[in-house]
């Protein structure tokens, strides 16, 4: 391993790189290989197993995290590309003393069955509602179409998102 440090330009022989990113509010410094994805780094060295892998190809949304506030499939982001960014995963959502309003809504509306799609679905919802708290049902369906669920049939997920939006409008932000 040659000392690549944070300088990534024209270092031809670099096999390992150092990245620095903020994850759930904490600064993390990691040594990563170029081909490692953000998902692998979150689940691996950072042990954030709440972020799930469903397909690895950006088709199912189970690995959704917020990257600089935007929902992305972490399986299709190289760890190196996340250098300098702020990542929020499901583990970072609940504040001390309570669940995020989206989490509360998912629990209350029965939108969770096996729960494997839930972290990604919740993060995608947070991204969706942060962008537009007044999303219509059509916009909800469009905004979450990249998150597959095999258990619920989505009916209660839609209810949960609408309930969360309502909570948000009523100022119940945690």
């Amino acid at each position: 391993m040659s000392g690549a440090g944070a300088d990534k330009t024209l270092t031809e022989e670099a096999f390992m790189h150092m990245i620095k990113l903020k994850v759930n509010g904490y600064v993390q410094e990691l040594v990563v290989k170029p081909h490692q994805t953000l998902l692998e780094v979150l689940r691996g060295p950072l042990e954030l197993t709440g972020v799930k892998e469903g397909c690895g190809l950006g088709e199912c949304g189970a690995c959704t995290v917020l990257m600089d506030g935007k929902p992305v499939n972490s399986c299709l982001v190289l760890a190196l590309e996340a250098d300098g960014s702020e990542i929020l995963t499901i583990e970072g959502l609940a504040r001390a003393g309570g669940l995020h309003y989206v989490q509360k809504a998912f629990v209350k509306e029965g939108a969770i069955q096996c729960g494997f799609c839930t972290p990604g679905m919740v993060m995608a919802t947070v991204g969706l509602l942060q962008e537009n708290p007044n999303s219509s049902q059509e916009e909800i369906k469009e905004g979450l179409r990249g998150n597959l669920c095999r258990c619920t049939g989505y009916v209660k997920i839609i209810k949960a998102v609408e309930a969360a939006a309502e909570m948000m409008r009523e100022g119940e932000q945690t």
Partner: protein
Amino acid sequence: MTWKVIGKGLPKIDSISKVTGEAQYTVDLKLPGMLYGNILRSPLPHAKIKSIDTSRAEELQGVHAVITAKDVPLNKFSFFQWLADKTILCSDKVRYVGDEVAAVAAVDEETALEALSLINVEYEPLPAVFDVEGAMNPGAPLIHDKEKNIGFHVERLFGDPDKAFEECDYICEDRYVTGQVSHCCLEVSNCIVKWDSSGRLTIWTNTQAPHTQRQEIARILGIPIRNVRIINSTMGGGFGSKLVIDMKLPIAAILSKKTGCPVRIENSRVEEFSTAKTRYSYTIYVKTGAKKDGRLWAREMKVIGDNGAYHDKGPATLNFSSMMFGTLYNIPNIRYEGNLVYTNKQMGTAFRGFGNPQIAFACETQLDVLANKIGMDPLELRLRNANQPDQMTFCGAEITSCGMKECMEAAARAIGWEEKRRGKGLRGVGLANMVHTGAGGRFYGYNAADAFIKLSDDGTVTLITPAQDMGQGAHTVMAQIVAEELGVNLEDINVISNDTDLTPYDLGSWGSRTTFMNGNAVLDAARNTKKEIITVASEMLEAIPDDIILEGGRVFVKGSSDQYSFSELADYAINRRGVPISGKGRFVDKLPSGYTIKEGFAKNIPTFAFGTQTAEVEIDEETGEVKVLKVVAAHETGTTINTLMAEGQIEGSVVQGIGYALMEGLTLKNGKVINDGFLDYKIPTIGDIPEIETILIETNDPHGPFGAKGIGEPGLVPTAPAIANAIFNAAGIMIKELPIIPEKILKALKEKKGS
């Protein structure tokens, strides 16, 4: 009846751990020193193995073990051991693309993958066969050492169908084909396996049936059952895919033994689609005859099930579908013939509905064609032939509670049957009925369950039950039953079910049996625990047992304002009385005496669950697209234990049903799956769902806990035929092959125009 927790839409008890990312699924587990295993699979659908050279793989740095057939016991295995036909690794022949040939264990996934690429296998390709009718031909390549490719055959006969058909005024005869579909659980199938120094094998895996899988592992490895322990984690979906072991488990066990390290093996998503087990595709010939007044008088069905390359639950699905075939509408003269035919493809296994969705598609769509012939409204035809409660059918099924009429009327009303049947442009509505088991069945000689409750010294209640929760909420149902009976709060109940060393023997979560079977056992345990609680309370509070009230986690005496907590009660029991509080429960489903399959081949089902779905569709006749506008699903629950969860089961099933009807199907080229990802194997997204209305019909089953029966599978059974019938109403075309993709609609419309 008003209950305190039964019937309420309470959030599942595991919701919070799931919504925070805290819940640990098998894929999230790591053990110290764990190695990563991977399997080399056959790239050919049918071939002889000439030689395998693993030397280069063994030399790769980071590889701890490489195994082939010579390193494993070659006991043949199947779920039904008398049909055993598969070995852990192939020794002489491979029989489908994906068949396990070799395996490696290495320090990480990358090294394991690289090692696989260094294994050299020399194959001699053999002619392969991919369709059942071709495989049944005399000249077809033989897949196993048998005279023909028919692996299983079953026949059922009641009444005299041949004579009865002669008495019919209207007859329909048709051929249907249902697709080969994949479970698509979000969590892939995976396991970690470890031996300990006493020679015991511990397996962490996502399984719906830990006790029977334990037997299977023991059998295939040739070790005593007592040496196997299975620990289940939170499951990321099941739907039947996690009932019978696949070769990952014994392969991991052997790698672990060889290396002395725990070994993890995980399916990739590609493997999940292209090599894992699927729903059985059925080719169905069905003939139905009716009298002038619409009475269904005779029905005959021949099913050819595509077994794939090896046996699994196929015989059971044929048997079960024959039972449902015989029960719905109580037709007096029926004949059923089922065959399982080997093909060089992925094997089939259990999948929600278990043969019933396949035959329901055929039977319920044919009924609409028949109704059309008679000139009768399809709803009317079905109402005339509806099953009744407390009825024994001609084929011997003992129906207790039955809400079929109510389901039909509710579903029809909610879709607007009267007005919408007239059709408007290319819009139409369709209806389909179903019957399913609401409690599994005594299929394998056993249908019982045990449960155990203890009151801890801190006043919380622990329930030990073998009920497996794969997301459907089994644990919450069990906890609600305990909460209702003992008057404790849901959050004070701890449910443990995940260790075969701890839990009583159970067949597992399948056949919609958990609520009824395990629920009854839990209710029994709760009642027995309550007896002990009341004995202690009456002594502690100096009151007569009848005056003791348990409510909200507290103990009261009738007429007094004094209340005590459960922890105070437990403290009294242990420290003053010197005896702990617990309760054991059991439920055994009794078969009628003198039962033989000849007398009644659905007699071993404790209770039946009826349901009806209606669908409204709109067809784009230029593109062939079918838009489902609304689905109404009216299903009996007996008693709904948890409304949110019952609705959730139905909604999830309906959407799977929409996928089954319109989108899903594995496509093969020369035996290899070419749509091995979510890109080209389409399942419904949130953008694809119609309006779904769920109606829960409560028929108060006489034997279910609080009157409940199962709801896990019924929701999937009538969806495809309801949609196909709606298409028939909208455009006058009946598509008889699933999935109903635009090409088929366009072709049928073209043919109709031409004729």
